């Protein structure tokens, strides 16, 4: 719960931070067109920042701020801080889920982690996917998990014993391998690789319109109408099959029939153990109606 509250607060803070700076940057670019590094935006600070002298932040274009020491325009580091704050929240929420003893607490911390990831998507200019992330992941899928946990109504404490030493050793080894590989990769790649900044995307990048155009019309590659049309239609089929399959698999009658089959094959004395009376009764009522 604390993670969720923190994410919501940070999200509003990020929106209030981002919007005034965009407005200020737009006016600055309009006021000082010569100082706006329009062609130099692909260039990072380490490879050589655009040699624009400035006195205040207002002298530079939107993502750039004035460096106090060198009086040149350098990229603002505020989005990077924001990114790692959201990233830390996402990592903390995921870690809370993995280590949680109670499934409900795990689901709630994972909702916070997914909301933090939606914040990262906004920072990466994927506003449509951020909305989808909140609606589908943090909303629908996690609510489904909560439903199932409440339905099962099972407080199962999982002890961290060493019953499966092999699997756990494999997990620890996998994590250690990835950490070592990442550390090696970060240590060996040149310093400039971290500071190369992608240029500013075109207007509306990652919005509903641009994603929809790629999904449905394929205009960006000139591939005609078929870029993602077939995958998209197949996806609707996948969702339909998932709905029908979930209904068929989780139907009470299926368990009852399976219980009857085991009861028939088993000796008659063990019959009463596997059939729960209330569920079987409602299943019979439903099936006689159907």
């Amino acid at each position, binding site marked *: 719960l604390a993670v969720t509250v923190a994410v919501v607060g940070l999200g509003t803070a990020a929106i209030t931070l981002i919007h005034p700076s965009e407005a200020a940057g737009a006016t600055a670019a309009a006021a000082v067109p010569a100082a706006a590094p329009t062609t130099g935006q692909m260039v990072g600070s380490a490879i050589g920042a655009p040699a624009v002298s400035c006195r205040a932040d207002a002298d530079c274009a939107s*993502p750039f701020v004035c460096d106090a020491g060198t009086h040149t325009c350098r*990229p*603002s580091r505020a989005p*990077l801080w924001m*990114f*790692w704050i959201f990233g830390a929240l996402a*990592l903390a929420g*995921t870690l809370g*889920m*993995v280590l*949680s003893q109670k*499934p409900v607490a*795990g689901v709630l911390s*994972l909702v916070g*982690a997914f909301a933090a990831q939606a914040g*990262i*998507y906004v920072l*990466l200019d*994927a506003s449509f*996917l951020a909305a989808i*992330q909140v609606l*589908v*992941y943090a909303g629908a*899928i996690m609510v*489904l998990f909560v439903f*199932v946990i409440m*339905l*099962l109504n099972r407080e*199962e404490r*999982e002890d961290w014993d060493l019953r*499966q030493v092999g699997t756990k050793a494999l*997990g620890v080894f*996998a994590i250690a391998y*990835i950490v070592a590989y*990442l550390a090696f990769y970060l240590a060996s790649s040149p310093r400039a*690789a*971290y*500071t190369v*900044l*992608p*240029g500013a*995307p*075109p207007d509306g990048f*990652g919005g509903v319109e*641009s*994603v929809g155009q*790629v*999904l449905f019309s394929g205009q*960006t590659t000139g591939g005609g109408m078929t870029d993602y049309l077939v995958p998209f239609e197949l996806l609707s089929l*996948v*969702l339909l099959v*998932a*709905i029908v399959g*979930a209904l068929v*698999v*989780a139907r009470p009658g*299926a*368990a009852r029939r*399976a*219980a009857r089959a085991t009861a028939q094959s088993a000796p008659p004395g063990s019959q009463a153990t596997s059939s729960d009376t209330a569920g079987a009764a409602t299943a019979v009522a439903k099936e006689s109606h159907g």
Partner: protein
Amino acid sequence: MIPLPHVIVLSALLFMLGVFGVLLRRNVLVLLMSVEVQLNAANLALIAFSRARQDVHGQALAFLVIAVAAAEAAVGLAIIVAVFRQKKTTDVDEITLLKH
């Protein structure tokens, strides 16, 4: 504005936590949630590359991944409910119907 390696490192860390959950936990609900975390980490990498290359195709792919993840969660949870009716447990070590 955010350098690409930072995003990739975060994505790898999140994926790693998902692997951690799948390999080390025994509650089948936590396992399924860990798989969702892995799919999400892959989405993060897709969106980061899409932003760096200024190509919306990565976001379209992430959109498809989200839809498939929703279908996977629905079917997986249905299977969990069905198995729970039969075995009265959510411990994956106890679910050995196909083993014998």
